[in-house]
């Protein structure tokens, strides 16, 4: 049993009934156990002590089970407990679970990506998951999940971020959202903002978070628009974007708004405060 399995089992034991624990220790085919898990464990939300959370983070950086239901945790544990000696056989077994999965199972499967063995083997599967339109499944991939930022190539990553905007996800919960910002994404998001403006729809303020570091002549026109035509929150988003930029005309624009400069300097203004997280 790996260190990760051990700590997961400790958390499961603290949250599950003795009957469920006895069931968990029995040997049975993975797909059956995986399917019937909620019948055995129920679906109560688990509690995790600070010490358990700390141990978990030290073993699997970025991986968290906060707010999970017990069946989701047990399912992830089952995936880790399965025989993984033969890489191809393991891949087929897990892939088959995806093919016949209901929503709760999909959530567990995608949550497990960062801790599954052979991590590079799940890149395509992760990209496929981003194509889902099921809210909980997308949330399982996007929120507090270290896998995508670590393993997805730039195209797939950009797709994830765009999908997050299209489906009104909380951008701040995406691990690696700032470190994986890139110019191509900034340009795509700028086009997206223009479409929203043309349709007279609101533009998600978090969008400018991913534009800031790449402000150039073209993107600066968008930032200017935030200041010229926008409300206070738009100017605040523009100010935050400029604070990540070295583009001189942008700096000069910001300096015309001393109260925003002050708010930035005093750290009274951040993406978290602006978008309510």
């Amino acid at each position: 049993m790996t260190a990760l399995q051990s700590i997961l089992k400790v958390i499961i034991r603290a949250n599950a009934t003795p009957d469920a624990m006895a069931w968990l220790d029995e040997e049975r085919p993975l797909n059956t156990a995986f399917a019937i898990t909620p019948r055995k464990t129920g679906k109560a939300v688990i509690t995790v002590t600070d010490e358990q959370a700390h141990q978990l983070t030290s073993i699997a950086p970025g991986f968290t089970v906060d707010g999970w239901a017990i069946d989701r945790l047990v399912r992830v544990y089952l995936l880790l407990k399965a025989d993984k000696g033969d890489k191809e056989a393991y891949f087929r077994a897990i892939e088959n679970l995806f093919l016949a999965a209901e929503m709760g199972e999909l959530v567990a499967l995608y949550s497990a990506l960062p801790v599954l063995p052979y991590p590079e083997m799940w890149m395509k599967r992760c990209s496929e998951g981003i194509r889902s339109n099921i809210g909980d499944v997308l949330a399982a991939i996007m929120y507090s999940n270290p896998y995508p930022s670590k393993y997805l190539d730039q195209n797939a990553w950009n797709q994830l971020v765009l999908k997050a905007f299209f489906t009104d996800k909380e951008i701040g919960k995406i691990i690696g959202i700032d470190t994986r910002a890139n110019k191509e994404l900034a340009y795509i998001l700028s086009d997206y903002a223009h479409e929203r403006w043309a349709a007279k729809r609101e533009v998600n303020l978090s969008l400018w978070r991913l534009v800031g570091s790449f402000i150039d002549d073209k993107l600066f026109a968008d930032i200017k628009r935030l200041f010229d035509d926008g409300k206070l929150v738009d100017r605040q988003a523009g100010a935050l974007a400029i604070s990540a930029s070295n583009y001189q005309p942008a700096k000069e624009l910001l300096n015309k708004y001393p109260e925003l400069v002050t708010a930035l300097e005093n750290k009274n203004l951040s993406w978290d405060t602006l978008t309510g997280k």
Partner: protein
Amino acid sequence: MCCTHSFVEVKNEPLSPAVSLDGIKGMKFFDPHVHMTSRTTDDYQAMADAGVVALIEPAFWLGQPRTGIDSFRDYYSSLIGWERFRSSQFGIKHYCTIGLNSREANNEALAEQVMEILPLFVYKEGVVGIGEIGFDDQTPAEEKYYRLQLELAKESGLPVQIHTPHRDKKGGTSRSMDIAIEHGLDPYKVIVDHNNEETVKEVLDRGFWAAFTIYPFTKMGNERMVDIAKQYGSGRIMVNSAADWGISDPLAVPKTAALMKIRGISDADIELITYRNAITAFAQSGQIDEADFAQAGSTIDQSQKFEGNTILRGGQQPRVDKSSIIIS
């Protein structure tokens, strides 16, 4: 599975006045047979507005035969995945029954493969029975796969949802029950569907659940249903819409409740026939928790604006103003 009527038979007679659902305002309904994959989001919205809090979508045929096993796999998978999600967006708890329908049991090469993947799906969360299974033409192949699926129901401890045939209904219904008993199933765990005045007595006398499908032209009308409720009471009787891709009505359950109310059936009996009995029968799967309905319902209309961002709670869909000519 429904809809064998010919569309040309439908006459253009003036429609009767709209049924007011005011009399049943505040009542909750459970539609234990409705094929939502064939319905639009408008239907979901209308069902939620009329008080439908939960439903069961039985696996059936798609109007034309499938040609390969992957079509079955994707269909079953959509019943526990995408369709369940779609339903949740309108605050309706979605369950399903899984099975090989009688028509497609006649393609034996394919049926064999379907039987192999069924066990993968019947243990999934929210699968409340094996269904809809039974007879269509009453061929030997249909009987073979009906029997095999009864065995699967026994093994998995799940209730059975039986589709009774359109042709030779009375004989087919008796035979379906005979075979279920022969396989040792408890009639209390078997829901016999698409009953009418001719079949109901035997079904109830033998201890099975009797479901009635309120479906225009080919099955029960709800005036006839009121008469049946008056004659047989509310024990082990339930109604459903079986709405699908044919001319059918996803509001059949609330409309029938409204008509029962107008015609003097007690609220307690209406509740049993349009809500409680279906839960009692299918909850024998261990997969129905009424607390989940309340949860699904409580997230309705929770669209919230925060600093210009629309944040939809629980994946809820924003409501569209259908009376406006403007689409934004």
